[in-house]
């Protein structure tokens, strides 16, 4: 029987190595695999490359991971946040590398990794500072930048519901980076609110097929602590 559900966060994160590139889903507070990030702090892997949209808020979650010196490099579109104290301190002191990537290019580079595309061209960033160090090329008279696929060793994602095949259903705006990161890593680990019986999830509601998911851990916040949007 296929059963991707594991019993604990520790089991879900087992084997993440020093130096790993870790894709972290979520946008703002929505769809963030917060318990997996806390687990990663416990787990101990260091020298990590973190790929996510923001560079952490306050001193919790990813910011805490950075503060502990466990993140060598961050690849993101928007290092600023409402409270970017940890990142900005580390960055000023030269203790963390930063690669700024336009948000859409970030998503597309991860998709490319998941879809077997080593490189693609985009008009985004053409002629700007973020073109530097990249090949540029004209197609039909317009300038484009060549962007390379960005693959994760691990992806940490969040979803509302899952089944034992690892199929994921998102809630509200909770999909965001999660589906594309799920397909762009060698090991995809999902934190979910609800486990459903196989067959309970509607085939057309599943945005991430279980094929992309290796491990699922349920984070029980006590039932429907948030009500799903009306059907």
């Amino acid at each position, binding site marked *: 029987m296929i059963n991707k559900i594991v019993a604990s966060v520790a089991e879900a994160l087992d084997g993440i190595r020093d130096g790993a590139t870790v894709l972290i889903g979520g*946008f*703002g*507070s*929505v769809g963030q695999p917060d318990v997996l990030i806390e687990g990663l702090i416990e787990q101990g892997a260091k020298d990590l490359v973190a790929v996510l949209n923001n*560079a952490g808020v306050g001193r919790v979650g990813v910011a805490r991971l950075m503060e502990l010196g466990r993140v060598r490099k961050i690849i993101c*579109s*928007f*290092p*600023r946040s409402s409270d*970017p104290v940890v*990142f*900005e301190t580390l*960055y*000023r002191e030269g203790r963390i590398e*930063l690669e*700024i*990537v*336009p*948000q*859409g*290019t970030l*998503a*597309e580079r*991860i*998709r490319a990794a998941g879809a077997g595309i080593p490189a693609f061209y*985009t*008009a*985004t*960033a*053409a*002629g*700007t*500072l*973020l073109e530097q160090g990249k090949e540029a090329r004209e197609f039909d008279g317009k300038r484009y930048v060549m962007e390379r696929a960005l693959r994760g060793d691990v992806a940490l994602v969040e979803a509302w519901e899952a089944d034992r095949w690892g199929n994921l259903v*998102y*809630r*509200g*705006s*909770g*999909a*965001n*980076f*999660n*589906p*594309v990161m799920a397909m762009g890593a060698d090991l995809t680990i999902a934190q979910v609110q609800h486990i459903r019986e196989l067959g309970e999830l509607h085939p057309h509601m599943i*945005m991430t097929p279980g094929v992309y998911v290796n491990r699922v851990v349920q984070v029980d916040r006590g039932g429907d602590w*948030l009500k799903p*949007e009306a059907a």
Partner: protein
Amino acid sequence: MPFTRDQMAARLGADVPEGWCVNLGIGIPTMVANHVQGKEVIFQSENGVIGMGPAPAKGAEDPWLINAGKQLITLAKGASFVGHADSFAMIRGGHIDLCVLGAFEVAENGDLANWATSENDTAPAVGGAMDLAAGAKRLWVIMEHTTKDGRPKLVERCGYPLTGLACVRRVYTNLAVIDVLPEKGFVLVDLAPGVTLDEVRAKSGAAIHTN
């Protein structure tokens, strides 16, 4: 009297036709959503929401529904969700009729600078601005006509790092509405009530033409 920010948003909103799919940047651009007066406009958000409704009533917030500015939102009837790759495919593929952004500078050749300033020693944050600048069908900028210390933001060439090249089509400021036309540069469309063309020219760093 120059426009207030709300009036700037209203002035822009009046120019949005029914049926457009519109992406609004953070700040003044977001206020445009309140000023499309009965027209059915589809508001898209980079985080995969297509069809945002008005801000939620107090007590009716759904914490799982936010926009790209991380504000709580509601869904309009007809809304749908996609993931980030699909959301930016929509943006970068030219399917957004209009993107409204703020700016540090707009040049008369349509160049936009809105993501990084040379004075800034912290890491610059680009977010989705370059994708929107390169991909939206048209880009309108909404901004104060000058910086807080009175320097012009409409310029001959941008001094700050560019967000996109030759992408701005129109600028809405507290003083005027100005088209950015290929070959021609800045061309006045409209003045705020009581504002003169001379004042607009005095506060601009590039020629303001009239038709």
